[in-house]
């Protein structure tokens, strides 16, 4: 917490997906200072996370554009006004002072904002939990390999069938005493070449159509000893394990925003026609915003976030017009 920054801005844009990037441009265009926060290390939301190479064909004025090129163009447009990007950090809580909403990020940074525009899309991806070992989380169970060295000379069990599971099994095979890769299905989703390397590694065992069903060890001291692996036939076996790494994919949810007092419908935030939420100084736009008749498309999100930012501009300075003027006026 000692390094934690304290920042102030007119607008805080929460989420750097397409909606948030366009919102950052728009806030700059309205003369507002802008901070953009995203939990992911890169901008571009779902487009960069799920389909960077696909062609997008339904954005006005762009007959066909590759996902990553579209995001680069949105960023370039926003950067004309030099917003501050705080990436790799999640917005966690909001408090209210008399003239600002104060948002705290997971690294302790506090941002005092005249208004917050939530463009959180489908939310933050979190690792899918391994139910059987939930009490062992951060003791003998983890969802990532942060530092492979930690697993030197350990018996490691890796659960999953995608690229992460295979990559980690591959990377740890030369460090760990043993690696057991456990996957629920017979086939792997990850790269065939990595799988071939994993299968031929002398200290690696691959168990398919199997699940980790129980953890056993000294929980109080965080000393995992073994896990039970159950085959779809019901046959069980015990596998030595100092550590289990579960790579079961990610589930996105708006997570911490659930505690902000917002009116929610499932994963979405209810807004009025000005894109205001029920919480003072907090607006929402794009996939995360919900109202009667909502259509979840980028072209709709762009309109919503422009609406939100224009209302923010007036809320912050009642002397301003709601209508921004035309962008062509400046040239």
């Amino acid at each position, binding site marked *: 917490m000692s390094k934690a920054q304290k920042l102030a801005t007119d607008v805080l844009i929460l989420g750097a997906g397409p909606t948030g990037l366009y919102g950052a441009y728009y806030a700059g265009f309205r003369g507002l200072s802008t901070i953009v926060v995203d939990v992911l290390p890169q901008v571009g939301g779902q487009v960069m996370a799920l389909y960077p190479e696909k062609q997008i064909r339904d954005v006005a004025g762009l007959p066909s554009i590759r996902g990553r090129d579209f995001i680069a163009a949105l960023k370039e447009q926003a950067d004309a006004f030099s917003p501050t990007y705080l990436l790799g950090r999640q917005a966690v809580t909001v408090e209210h002072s008399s003239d600002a909403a104060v948002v705290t990020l997971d690294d302790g940074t506090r941002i005092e904002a005249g208004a917050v525009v939530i463009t959180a899309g489908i939310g933050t991806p979190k690792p899918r939990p391994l139910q059987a070992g939930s009490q062992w989380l951060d003791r003998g169970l983890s969802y990532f390999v942060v530092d492979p060295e930690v697993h030197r000379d350990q018996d490691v069990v890796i659960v999953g069938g995608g690229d992460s599971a295979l990559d980690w099994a591959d990377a740890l095979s030369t460090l760990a005493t043993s690696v057991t890769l456990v996957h629920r299905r017979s086939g792997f989703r990850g790269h065939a070449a990595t799988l071939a390397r994993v299968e031929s590694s002398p200290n690696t065992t691959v168990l398919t159509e199997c699940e980790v069903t129980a953890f056993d060890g000294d929980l109080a001291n965080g000393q995992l000893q073994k896990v039970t692996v159950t085959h779809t036939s019901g046959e069980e076996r015990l596998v030595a394990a100092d550590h289990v790494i579960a790579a079961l*994919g990610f*589930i996105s949810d708006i997570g911490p925003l659930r505690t902000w007092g917002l009116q929610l419908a*499932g994963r979405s935030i209810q807004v009025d026609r000005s894109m205001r939420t029920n919480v003072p100084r907090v607006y929402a736009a794009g996939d995360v915003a919900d109202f009667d008749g909502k259509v979840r498309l980028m072209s709709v999100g762009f309109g919503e976030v422009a609406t939100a930012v224009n209302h923010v501009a007036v809320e912050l300075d009642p002397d301003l017009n709601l209508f921004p003027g035309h962008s062509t006026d400046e040239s």
Partner: protein
Amino acid sequence: MAYVIGPDCTDILDRSCIDVCPVDCIYVGERKSYINGNECIDCGACEVECPVEAIVVDRVAKKNPKFSPYLTDQESFFHDILPGRDAPLGDPNGATALGPVGVDTPLVAALPSNQ
């Protein structure tokens, strides 16, 4: 819009689709899985994972007589009261937390064995 799981999932239920769904909106009944159309973000990740090609997008399902009944059946799984329960599932917002529902719609329960 949403993706739809057709009858070929019945008794196969290998859950590959569930592993890849980024919003955890594929729910397990007893013999078959069902996608919650309000929660699905139409990403298509599940479609390519299914080993028996049981999943299609609703636009395709509407025009295909094999799939079209499962469009309404999938809605009924969430919006009607399932046998043995006293309220509809609604939009549970996460299949992992809910766990297997353990019961199917009457249409699916009546299907012949698919093994």
